[in-house]
C-alpha cells in the first residue's frame, strides 16, 4: 500500500527538480512550434505569373462541410478562368482541410495563421485578403 504512494511522490519530485520537462508555452512571449501539416486559415496561392492559381472550378465550395466558401468565376481576355469573387467566412470555417484536398491546382492551402480573434461578429476573407496572406509570406524577411 505504501510503495505505490512513494513511487508517485518520487515521480512528482523528479518533475519538480527538472523544470525542463515543463510543457506549457508562455504563449504571446514564445510562439508554439507548429507542425508542417498544421491546419490554420486557408490561403489562396500565387502562381509563377504573379496571379492567383485558382481557376474558379468551385470544387472547394462544393466539398466544404460548413459551406463557408463562395466562388464566382469569370474569364479574362486570354480565356483563363479566374475567381471574380472568392469569399471565405472565417467564422464558419472549421479548418478541416477538405478544400485543400479537393483543389485540382493546389490553389488553396491551409497554413499556420491561427490568431483570428476579431471585434466583429462577422469576418469574411475576400480574395484580396486571402492573397495578401500569401504575399506577406513571400516577402523577404
Amino acid at each position: 500500500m505504501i510503495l505505490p504512494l512513494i513511487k508517485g511522490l518520487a515521480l512528482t519530485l523528479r518533475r519538480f527538480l527538472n523544470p525542463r520537462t515543463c510543457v506549457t508555452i508562455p504563449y504571446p512571449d514564445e510562439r508554439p512550434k507548429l507542425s508542417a501539416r498544421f491546419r490554420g486559415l486557408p490561403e489562396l496561392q500565387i502562381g509563377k505569373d504573379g496571379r492567383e492559381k485558382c481557376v474558379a472550378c468551385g470544387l472547394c465550395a462544393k466539398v466544404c462541410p460548413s459551406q463557408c466558401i463562395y466562388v464566382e468565376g469569370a474569364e479574362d481576355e486570354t480565356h483563363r478562368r479566374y475567381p471574380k469573387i472568392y469569399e471565405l467566412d472565417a467564422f464558419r470555417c472549421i479548418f478541416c482541410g477538405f478544400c485543400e484536398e479537393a483543389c485540382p491546382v493546389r490553389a488553396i492551402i491551409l497554413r499556420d495563421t491561427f490568431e483570428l480573434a476579431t471585434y466583429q461578429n462577422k469576418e469574411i476573407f475576400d480574395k484580396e485578403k486571402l492573397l495578401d496572406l500569401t504575399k506577406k509570406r513571400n516577402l523577404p524577411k
Partner: protein
Amino acid sequence: MNKELFAYLVIACVKILLVFGTIQLMVISMIWLERKIMAHMQVRLGPMRVGPHGLLQPIADGIKLLFKEDIIPEKASKLLFVLAPAMAMIPALITFAVIPFGDKVKILGYNVDLVITDINIGFLYVFAVSSLGIYGIVMAGWASNNKYSLLGGIRSSAQMISYELTLGLSLIGVVMLTESLSLVDVVNAQGKLWNIVLQPLGFFIYFTSAIAEVNRCPFDLPEAESELVAGYHTEYSSMKFAMFFMAEYANMITVSAIAVTFFLGGWHGPFLPPVVWFMLKLSGCLFFFIWIRSTFPRLRYDQLMHLGWKFLLPLSLLNILITGLIMVIKG
C-alpha cells in the same frame, strides 16, 4: 508602573506581533509557493504574468478579493455567517502562542524566551484550541442556508472529529517519553536525538491525520468541487472567502509547527541559529504538504472513515503500547 513589569509587557507584545506578522507573511508566500511548486510538479508553469514569475500574484489576488462585492445571502443566519470566517482563522493563529521557535536570547540585558508563553499544559492547550477551528467551518456551512454548504460543513466536522482522536493519540508517545506536557520541555528533551527516530510510527500517524485535520488534499472532502460546489464556503465572497482561504494555510503552518516541535527537534540543529533551523524545518513540512497535494488523488468518503477509524486509530494505540513496553523494559 514598575520597570520589570513594563519590560515584560513590551517583550510579550513584540513577540506576539512578530509571530503573527511572520505567520501572515508565510501565508501569503505559501499561496504563491504552492501554486508554483504544484505547477512544476504537474509539468506546468503556474502564474507567470504578475511580476517576475508571478511573484506578485498573491497581492493581486488579495486586491481583487478586497474589491469584490461582499454578499450575504438573504436567508442566511447573519450573525453566524459573519462570525464563521473569524472562528476559522483565530484558532489557527493562537495555537502559535505555545510553540517555541528559538532558544533563550539576551536582548538589552533581558533574558527573552523565544516562545510567546510557556504554559505547563501546552499540549492540552494546542488541542483545545485547534478543535475550535471546526466550529468556524460548521457555522459557515449551517449559516449559509445552502444544502451544499451544509453537507460540506457536516462532512468537515465528521472528518475533523475522527482525525482529532488519532492526532492526539499519535502525540501521546512523545509526551510519555518527555514526561511533560510543556512544549518547551518537549523541545529541550530533543537536544541530542529527535523524536522522529524514537517515534517513527507516531510521526507517520501524526502527519497523516494532520493532513486530514486541516482538510488538505488527499483528504479535502469538505470542499470536493465535483460533489459539493465548494463545500462550506460556497456562499462566501470577498474578504470573508479570503479569511477561509488564509485560515486553511494558517492551519497548515500550525500543524507543521506542531510536527516540528514534537518530532523534528524544534529549533535544535547544528551551525545555524535556532530560529533559522525552526523555519527551515517548518518550510520542509510545508513543502511536504504541497508535494502530497500535487501527487495524490482525493479519497472517497468511506475510504477516509475506514482509514481513520480502522487503520490509524488502532495503529496509534499500538504505538502507545509499544512505547510503554519499551519504557518499562528499559526502566
